[in-house]
């Protein structure tokens, strides 16, 4: 385990660390949404502070000719920038008496604080992925310039959500962004997909999943009434991971133990046109 996590100097045993790791990773895996539509680039190491992000032109065409002499037939980035690997973190405390009790009478260590910190860190990661971070000058999937937009008004009407999602797929496809697609919806929009579709005996979400191919997900991080449809693939965007989610020992204070769930990540959007944002306002 990496030295900077300060585990070796901590008073926790290997078995106790294993319990904490299990709780943190399981809680995060359960709650993370962005990673369900993003490829991972890395891990690059905890020390790395920035990662390059290359922006590419919208999809063009491959060449077909008799002698391989076609000009301008190279895929190359039009712009390179450097994105900071932001640190996402949440601290938690293990009370010394809880730890002692667990050891004295062989009770399982209560990992609820670790799991809670992991859930909040997962939420912070998703917030960074979808909305970016103004202070760090990072855009997210929902607000990156260059994405396509669709205004929605009557999502509550039976069949309307599928019409909007189909329209988004149509827009992406017309711009050369192909399958698989994935939809991420705010909680309120997602709930309305759980209805029977018109006069069929199936739910709207079942049809939506068929249309998307890459899944339909709900995220509490998205603003109410907001949805995204994405053309998936690392050629469009990915998540650069410096240090994947892990737990470090911070300090002991008043005999209690303070730990930190942390990671370093950067969203790299290479082709904003692969994103279609649906919302009440189509700005």
């Amino acid at each position: 385990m990496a030295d900077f996590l300060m585990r070796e100097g901590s008073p926790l045993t290997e078995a106790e660390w294993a319990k904490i790791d299990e709780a943190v990773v399981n809680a995060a895996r359960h709650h993370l949404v962005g990673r369900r539509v993003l490829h991972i680039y890395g891990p690059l190491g905890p020390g790395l502070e920035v990662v390059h992000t290359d922006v590419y032109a919208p999809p063009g065409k491959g060449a077909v000719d008799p002698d391989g002499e076609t000009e301008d037939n190279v895929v190359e980035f039009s712009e390179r920038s450097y994105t900071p690997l932001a640190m996402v973190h949440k601290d938690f405390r293990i009370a010394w008496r809880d730890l002692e009790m667990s050891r004295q009478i062989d009770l399982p260590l209560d990992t609820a604080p670790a799991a809670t910190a992991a859930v909040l860190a997962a939420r912070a990661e998703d917030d960074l992925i979808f909305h970016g971070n103004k202070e760090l000058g990072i855009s997210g999937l929902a607000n990156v310039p260059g994405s396509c937009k669709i205004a929605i008004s009557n999502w509550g009407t039976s069949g309307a959500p599928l019409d909007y999602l189909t329209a988004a797929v149509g827009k992406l496809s017309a711009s050369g962004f192909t399958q698989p697609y994935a939809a991420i919806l705010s909680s309120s929009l997602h709930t309305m997909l759980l209805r029977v579709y018109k006069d069929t005996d199936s739910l709207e979400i079942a049809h939506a999943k068929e249309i998307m191919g890459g899944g339909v997900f709900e995220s509490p991080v998205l603003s109410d009434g907001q949805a995204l449809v994405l053309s998936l693939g690392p050629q469009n965007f990915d998540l650069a991971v410096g240090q994947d989610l892990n737990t470090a020992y911070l300090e002991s204070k008043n005999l209690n133990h303070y730990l930190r769930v942390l990671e370093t990540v950067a969203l790299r959007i290479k082709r904003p046109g692969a994103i279609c944002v649906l919302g009440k306002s189509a700005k």
Partner: protein
Amino acid sequence: MTDQERQADIALLAGIAAGEHAAIIQYMTHRFYAGEGDIGCEVEEIARREMLHWKWINEHIRELGGEPALERGPINIAGPDVASMMQADVELEEHCMREYEQAIAKTSNPALKRQFEHHLRDERGHREDFAKLVIEAREQAASGAEPHVPTEEEQAIIAMLNSGVAQEYAAVLQYLHQSMATDDLKVSRATLNVAIEEMKHMAQLADEVVPLGGTPAVEPDVVKIDTDDAGRLKTNVADEDAAGQLYQSQIDSLATAGKPEISDLLALIRDQETFHRETFEDLLRHAQAGAEDSTPPPKPQGPMLTVGSLLGQPQDQ
């Protein structure tokens, strides 16, 4: 699993290991009396199965953090006829079946329950096999010859052979313990291989005792338990050296006894003990030189993913 449950399971396993150990020795002793015919072969096959049970049980003990169990439960050689020996084996199998049934009820560890059920099925089959062997042995006894009564000279040879049986028995236990207690794969493999050869020596020597009218020894010499590989290997080197010298002195004393087949057997075993000593000497040198000389240095560990990609995974997972 709480520590209390773990300790209870270790104690349960140790009790069962003692029963399996007793079965191995009882059946192997009966095998020497039964000779190498049908009955002997069947009994040996069952004894081999019990050896596997003993090994599995001890592996579970190690997994739970316990020390390999070398204790042995009570044995009943019975006799003097083979039929009554087979009857004693029926009774031992019935005892083992009860032990396994109780153990299945006692443990909450699903892996142990599964293992015990596996063994219980075996023991039920063995009980039926021994019941058939009782009948077969009675039929053979009706037409059999009277047992041989050893002469004074033969009694001396029996005592000499039995000293080897006890020594080999102790070596088997010592090396099996080491093969499970060590964390070094090379040491574990080597001690297991040597234990298997010592088991063969034990059977070869005991096989010579019965035709002379003797009873094979069923108690081991002292089993030496060391706590680290270097100590274990030093002990093994000294033991193998002593065993080689003992067999050489026995070969010399047999020169005038007119028993060339026994003399040849002892010479074979002596040579194999020399090979064992050399094997342990090599391992000892390796252990003393430090494992780092031959073990490649661990590769520096790069950053690793913990949560990793969830691409395409549904949200309910």
